């Protein structure tokens, strides 16, 4: 009766919090990430709390495209099925405002977009036959507009949003739920040391919202909800004005 979930990017931040939240919510979780030690710690904590073998680590680097199929199959074999896939891997390197570094940018695209597509395509193919399942991508409010600070991070999240929208349009007729999560700043490694972040929330709170989103309600979610009115306004700002604003 336990539901079966894969969390990609589970060694820290929202992904790690999701492993715990899912285990508490009656899931068995295949936790996928690159950093083995951190991943083992996350799974160990979840298993200790539940007193049961409910999370298992699968070491995998999302930029290693050739290995995705095998890692996916290994996770599904351990879970003995699949109900939910959450792609929570993502990077946001610090970029100076005058910096244009294609190597860093390519890395962002690989982790945030290409890795997501590789994992979620496999899930989509399976769920289409299965006639059920939920695909969750962690986008960002940063994907709503191109800003000065980190052009490719913005672009990568925008690409993810659009990809997920297309998946939703393909799969909803097959009974599959595709959820786009757009969190504001979340207190994780990614945001550590950054000043002046608005409406910063803890990863646990974000994870609770994400698990709720799996079960029902709107398929595009701002977390926390305060970002919905804010981003509605920000999206509507004409470019001529937007470029003159401080962000």
């Amino acid at each position: 009766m336990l539901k079966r979930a894969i969390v990609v990017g589970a060694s820290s931040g929202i992904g790690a919090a999701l492993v715990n939240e899912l285990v508490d919510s009656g899931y068995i979780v295949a936790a996928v990430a690159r950093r083995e030690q951190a991943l083992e710690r996350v799974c160990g904590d979840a298993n200790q709390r539940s007193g049961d073998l409910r999370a298992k680590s699968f070491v995998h680097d999302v930029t290693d495209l050739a290995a995705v199929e095998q890692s996916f199959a290994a996770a599904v074999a351990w879970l003995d099925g699949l109900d939910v896939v959450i792609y929570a891997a993502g990077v946001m390197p610090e970029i100076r405002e005058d910096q244009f570094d294609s190597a860093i940018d390519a890395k962002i695209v690989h982790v945030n977009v290409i890795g997501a597509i590789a994992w979620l395509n496999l899930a989509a193919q399976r769920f289409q036959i299965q006639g059920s399942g939920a695909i969750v991508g962690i986008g960002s409010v940063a994907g709503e507009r191109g800003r000065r600070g980190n052009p490719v991070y913005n672009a990568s999240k925008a690409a993810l949003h659009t990809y997920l929208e297309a998946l939703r349009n393909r799969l909803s007729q097959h009974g599959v739920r595709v959820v786009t999560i757009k969190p504001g700043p979340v207190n994780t490694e990614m945001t550590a040391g950054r000043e002046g972040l608005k409406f910063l929330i803890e990863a646990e709170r974000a994870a609770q919202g994400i698990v709720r989103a799996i079960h029902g309600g709107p398929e595009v979610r701002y977390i926390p909800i305060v970002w919905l009115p804010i981003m509605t306004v920000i999206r509507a700002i004409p470019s001529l004005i937007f470029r003159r604003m401080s962000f």
Partner: protein
Amino acid sequence: MANPYEQTAEAPHWEARRAWGMTQRVVAKVFRPMSAEDVVAAFEWASARGLTVCPWGNGRSYGDAALNDSEVILDMGGMDRVIEWDRASGIVTVEPGVTIAKLWRHILPDGHWPSVVSGTSYTTIGGCTAANIHGKNNWMHGPIGDHILRFTIVTPDGRIREIDRESDPNLFHAAIGSFGALGVFTSITLQTKRIYSGRLDVQPLAAADLEEMFLHFEHHEAQSWDYVVGWIDAFASGDRLGRGNMHAARYVAEGVDPVGERMLSVSSQELSATIFGFPKKWMWALMKPWAHRLGMRFINLSRYIWSTFERNQRRHLEPHAQFNFLLDFVPNWKKVYEPHGLIQIQLFIPKAHARRVIYQAIELQQSMKYESWLVVMKRHRADAYWLSHAVDGYSFAMDFPVWPKRRGELYELGRALEQMVQEAGGRFYLAKDSLVSGSSFRKSIGDETLGRFQALKTLLDPTGTLQSNQWRRLQRTMGHIESIPMGADDVYSVLSEESEDGRD
């Protein structure tokens, strides 16, 4: 990148399957064998690709007993012929995909009824044998295995064996109730029950509390009634905890029912298609608005009050199908539990602990505000099947709705109930189960029996081809089981065959 779920031209195709409880879906390569030879071919196809195989009957198991994610499922539904029916002796040989519904329709006009049936008639005889099902007459007539004379079983080594109780008592008692872990049944020969009326003599009684319920059971047991079944309102608490009603029924002797002969027709048994003029196939939609705790509290209360009326406690004659197939009374009742499904947990508790355990189990559900919407109580007897779920005692089958937000709590509740069963020396029933741990299952069956089973499995299925989601789930937390080879005096045709071939 390749698509592992691509539908290739080569059969079989990927298909989605879900169990009756609707809580889990899998995708699997599905074969539809039409003969024992097809089963052999499917085994060859699977083992050449390193895949595992699980037989599937009609998908009536609640949990993961017939699921095999990303691997091979053998849908036995196509093998649905009644091979031979001898009306004089009441012995019938069927293919595994024959449902109980088909079987009783075939034999009733000749004055026979299947000796053991499940609460729904849509289970297959193959599935019933693999699960070693019981009916409401279990305490008196045993499980279906006790009425099986012989069966044909195809094992992953490609052999087709015909086994009966005498030729190989070990394999006979191990394979029945092993949920397809040793082989796939391709024909089953059953002794059916001679009946002289199409109706049963039925006595309904209300019970005001748990004590009265047990007294009703004990009273009817003392009078040797064939069938005893109780229903408990899990919402009633305090002094009323355990209230509900019970039904006892017995076969009618020759000449007692004046219209008994006439009732031996299929049409006299058919459940009516309407209830109070309302088409039954839409009943679930009427029930749906009541599918929450408050609604179910009301429905359980109403049902109890209804059962206390004097006219509803009168002894009467009732057609077999109507009495036995309660789960078919409301077609598609499971839709009430959609979209998230239900789980059923059936506690098998030895007689000495039954009162205490069911009391505690219901109290626990009430304290968690997670009451079972339906509790069905039965009386059982122990039997000789290796992986048997039966005990000399009582069972309590409980249906729990699944709510996504409370899935974690439901799991905790299930674990607590599992603990109660284990402490009372009870057993688990894999046809219902979807959460028991391998370690609890191991303790309930015992290392010696499991060790013997393991030895037999290694012999018949050395590569571990026969598996299911359930099998793997249990294995994962079962720990290592030491194989216990058969003793020299054991009748063991499997071994002797091997040595005759010089394979040893």
